[in-house]
Each structure stands twice: as structure tokens, then as C-alpha cells.
């Protein structure tokens, strides 16, 4: 089974702090994704990466950056945390990179982030 592990289940930070959310997958997947989930809005894509050191903006990248130095690890960075970034953050991975066949994404259990 695919295992996607997010480093923290719950996190509380203060406004203005730099926040790091870490995600690791153990199945040699090429694609990795960061989403946030908010009530009534579903899952919205923040950033994704289809290869090491490659990144693409999703639908709501403002205020975030990402890092993928190794294939198995994808980090989400909140440069200067704000209260409107309080949310559930979900990491996902999928097997194939660009041009590959359709396949599902596999999710971690999420990080509930509160910005005070």
C-alpha cells in the first residue's frame, strides 16, 4: 500500500511566522501535490511537483512556496503565516509524471494548521 506521511497532525503557529509542512511518500511516485481543504470549498490545489526540483503553481499559490529536493519529500512553506491560512493541509502523490496514464492520487492524513 502507498504510504503518504505528513509530519504533523496538528500545528499552531503565530501570525508572521515561517511555517514548514513536510510530506514523505514511500512508493517512488513522481507527482506530489499540496492542497488545502476548507468547508464548502472542497480541496484546492496550492502547488504540485512532477519531478525533483520541479514545481508548478496550482490554483491558490499566493503566500506559499514549495521545495522538492528529493523525490520522496515535498515541503510546503508559508513564508509569513496569516490567519486566513488556518486550514487543513493535505499532501498527495501519484505514480506517473507528465504524459503518463491516468491514475488516482493517494493522500496523507492531513495537517490541521491554526494561525493565531
Amino acid at each position, binding site marked *: 500500500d502507498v504510504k*503518504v506521511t505528513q509530519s504533523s*497532525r496538528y500545528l499552531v503557529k503565530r501570525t508572521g511566522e515561517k511555517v514548514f509542512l513536510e510530506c514523505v511518500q514511500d512508493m517512488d511516485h513522481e*507527482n506530489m*501535490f499540496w*492542497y488545502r481543504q476548507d468547508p*464548502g*470549498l*472542497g*480541496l*484546492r*490545489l496550492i502547488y*504540485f511537483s*512532477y519531478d525533483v526540483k*520541479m514545481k*508548478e503553481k*496550482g490554483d491558490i499559490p499566493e503566500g506559499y512556496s514549495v521545495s522538492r529536493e528529493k523525490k520522496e519529500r515535498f515541503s510546503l512553506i508559508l513564508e509569513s503565516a496569516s490567519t486566513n491560512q488556518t486550514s487543513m493541509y*493535505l499532501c*498527495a502523490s*501519484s505514480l*506517473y*509524471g*507528465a*504524459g*503518463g496514464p*491516468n*491514475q*488516482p*492520487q*493517494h*493522500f*496523507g*492524513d*492531513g495537517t*490541521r494548521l491554526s494561525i493565531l
Partner: protein
Amino acid sequence: DQQVKQNSPSLSVQEGRISILNCDYTNSMFDYFLWYKKYPAEGPTFLISISSIKDKNEDGRFTVFLNKSAKHLSLHIVPSQPGDSAVYFCAASYHKEPHGSSNTGKLIFGQGTTLQVKP
């Protein structure tokens, strides 16, 4: 611009009956559709998918129907069980050629429908 919509925020059904969750989309380029289930404090779990070349896919109690002309997708759960109570998300994606395209694998999600199955 909501390309994938789940217009019913919630649904309540009796145990043993059929649950029907609906999803509409606007982008005719979508060629792959998925349903995920999410329990509180857990990540979404992949349930079932369907390619645009099919109109039905079945896996045990779960069946997904695709009506391309109506741009409509539905998930049927028969019979419904209390353990099916969760939030259900539909999602869609499309291939984008040529080689090196970065959009392949990107999913667009609906807002979710909370299903409650009563014993």
C-alpha cells in the same frame, strides 16, 4: 470558476437503501473522473474511477455512472451502510499533450457532499 460542482452539501439515507451522490462538470476536456471518501481527521481515500471512454464502472457496492452529454457523474452505493457515512468528493482530470506537459495528473475537486447513513 468552479469546473467541478457538487450541488448537494449533504445527503441522508437509511441503512440498506441506495445512496446517490451527484457531480456536474463544465470542462469537456476532462477524460478521467474519480470519487474519494473522507472521514474526519483523515485524508481522502480513493474509491472508484472512470475513464471518459466508459459510461459505467462497478466495484462491489460502488458504481460510478458517467453521462458525457450532460457532463454529469454519479456515485451509487448499494446497499448503504453506517460506515459509509463520510464526505464524498468527486474529481476530474485531463491529459494534456505534448511530452513534458505538467498538467497531467492534476485533479480538480468538487466541494464535497456529506453522506449520513442512519441505522
